[in-house]
């Protein structure tokens, strides 16, 4: 068995295989529902209803999609340059910590938002910078270093929440003090739970798209990702490009944590992120690493989670079906992307 590149893949091929991947995911979802003793179409219908079936559900989906857009963008930017940023979780918490630190009211609105966001991005960027420097200087594979940093950061947050940042009125539960009202992101529309974090996420996606398609940096990032040796041979400052990619990626991931604290929750606790950093990887791959696709994929993934929560309450199928489906969607999609570009030949 051999893989032969397809010279000019047709649009049917480029979109058809990913569509097949999604179909395969849906089929697997039905099988899992059957195993769980539930009726497959009904289960899928409940998931759909739970995701977008009511105004409340739709807003919940949009809220859940906000951090996923940020982490999805972070991962997509990094992966495009073949920088394996698995540490979005740690970068997210860095941004969250900054949001709390600057949410004390010392800086007034509306200045607090750009300042806090910028510092949050800086914090996230610095977190990713360590592993990237280790990669460029010492050749240490960044997958494991970024991963291990996630555990270290979580422990650090735990220390902060039980110590210096502890809320004295939290009744013993480790969480930070609440942000003052002026530091809270306003609602997009009065009366709804949806906050401006979602708007910022959309703006971020547009900005990343412009960077990738219209700037020299974007071109360099793509070149470095596709063929490092060739980029270096062409005279590109490869290490500088990787560092800039890291700064952008880490900053975006930090905004996920920043917006969750400033917009949704208003304080920091250990359960801030149910794995947004890792799910961002799935979002990025499903989006084929395209920044605008990330928005669509994030909405899709958020819908699956929100819908499964609601479905699980109604039909009793464990919510983990969502995680299984997304892991399978990731594997199917990676296979589909390859099949859309290569032909499998016997021999």
């Amino acid at each position: 068995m051999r893989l032969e590149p397809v010279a000019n893949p047709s649009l049917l091929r480029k979109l058809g295989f990913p569509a097949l991947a999604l179909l395969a995911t849906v089929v697997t979802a039905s099988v899992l529902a059957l195993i769980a003793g539930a009726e497959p179409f009904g289960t899928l219908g409940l998931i759909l209803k739970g995701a977008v079936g009511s105004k409340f559900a739709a807003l919940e989906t949009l809220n859940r999609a906000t951090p996923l857009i940020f982490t999805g963008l972070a991962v997509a930017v990094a992966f495009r340059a073949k920088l394996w940023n698995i540490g979005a979780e740690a970068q997210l918490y860095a941004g969250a910590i900054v949001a709390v630190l600057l949410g004390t009211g010392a800086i007034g609105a509306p200045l607090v938002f750009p300042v806090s966001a910028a510092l949050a991005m800086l914090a996230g960027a610095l977190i990713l910078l360590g592993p990237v420097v280790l990669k460029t200087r010492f050749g240490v594979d960044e997958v494991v270093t970024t991963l291990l940093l996630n555990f270290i950061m979580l422990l650090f947050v735990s220390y902060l929440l039980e110590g210096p940042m502890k809320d004295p009125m939290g009744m013993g539960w480790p969480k930070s003090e609440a942000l003052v009202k002026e530091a809270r992101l306003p609602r997009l529309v009065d009366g709804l739970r949806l906050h401006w974090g979602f708007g910022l996420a959309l703006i971020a996606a547009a900005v990343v798209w412009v960077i990738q398609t219209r700037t020299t940096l974007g071109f360099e990032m793509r070149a470095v990702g596709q063929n490092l040796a060739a980029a270096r041979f062409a005279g590109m400052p490869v290490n500088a490009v990787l560092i800039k990619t890291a700064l952008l990626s880490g900053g975006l991931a930090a905004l996920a944590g920043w917006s969750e604290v400033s917009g949704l929750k208003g304080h920091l606790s250990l359960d801030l992120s149910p794995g947004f950093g890792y799910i961002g990887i799935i979002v990025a791959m499903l989006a084929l690493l395209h920044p605008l696709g990330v928005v669509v994929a994030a909405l899709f993934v958020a819908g699956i989670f929100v819908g499964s929560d609601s479905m699980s309450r109604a039909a009793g199928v464990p919510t983990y079906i969502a995680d299984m489906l997304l892991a399978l969607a990731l594997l199917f999609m990676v296979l589909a992307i390859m099949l859309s570009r290569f032909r499998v030949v016997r021999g």
Partner: protein
Amino acid sequence: MSALLEILFSASFLAAAVRIASPLIFATMGELICERAGVLNLGIEGIMVIGAFTGWMAVYQGMPLWGGVGVAMGAGMLFGLLHAVLTVPYGLSQHVVGLGVTLLATSTSSFAYRLMLPEVTSPPKIEPFQPYEIPFLSDLPLIGEALFSQTPMTYGAFAVAGLTAWVLFRTPLGLAIRAAGESPAAVEAQGLSVTGLRIGAVIVGSGLMAVGGAFLTLSAFSSFFFEMVNGRGWICIALVVFGAWRPGKAVLGALLFAGFDALQIRLQQTPIGAHLPYQVFLMAPYVLSILALILMSRRAEVPAALMVPYNKGER
């Protein structure tokens, strides 16, 4: 200082270190076999979880303990097969497939656990492996308790490490596996199949990883809970690098790390330790893993064809 020495030379500390190292040894040997053949298996964390879960569930449903170990190994081999098929013949990114396998295996464990035990609030227990004292040797001072009064799975871990070293460096099969990771073209020139060797190595390696996970539920703790693997898989990846892809050094690395883990609980009770937040001690294994990676990354002992998909006939 004397408090530290007292701890280091106590039998209970050494025994704890050996016990904590056991799952790491299984999983590290598994990853080492995969990487020697040329495949980075990032599914290790998830495969340890599925091993822990299936081993425990099998015993919970009435199987004998060693049967549970076998079931765990089988589950690991299945996920290894998935990883191998996607990365070896299809040449997909080993990073992404590995992470996908980890996510899938972990979520499958959670899903199946919830499905089979829906109303459970505290995790049910099974009867785990009991320590088996090797006659005469276990009466030796200090190392008697540390090395010869462990559970059968710990003895198994060291046996597997020895077996891995012997197969890799003293048999033709081992030579072929190592060659598949160093220069696949040479292997094909001999008429052997690089694809077959790599798939086989990943399947066997993943089986061992799952046994490492099963140690956690069948020998260390006696119930399964989410988050129990807690990053051990990633630490094993660092241990493979730390051991320069050699089983003996990797085992020493595992013992060293386990020692730090065993130490941190005891250090917290000393006068100095009481002043530091406990999170600092818990961070130690992860920080050390990063340091180990930095230290060892300068050596050029990486298998040359690691992470390079092999396309037959390609120059």
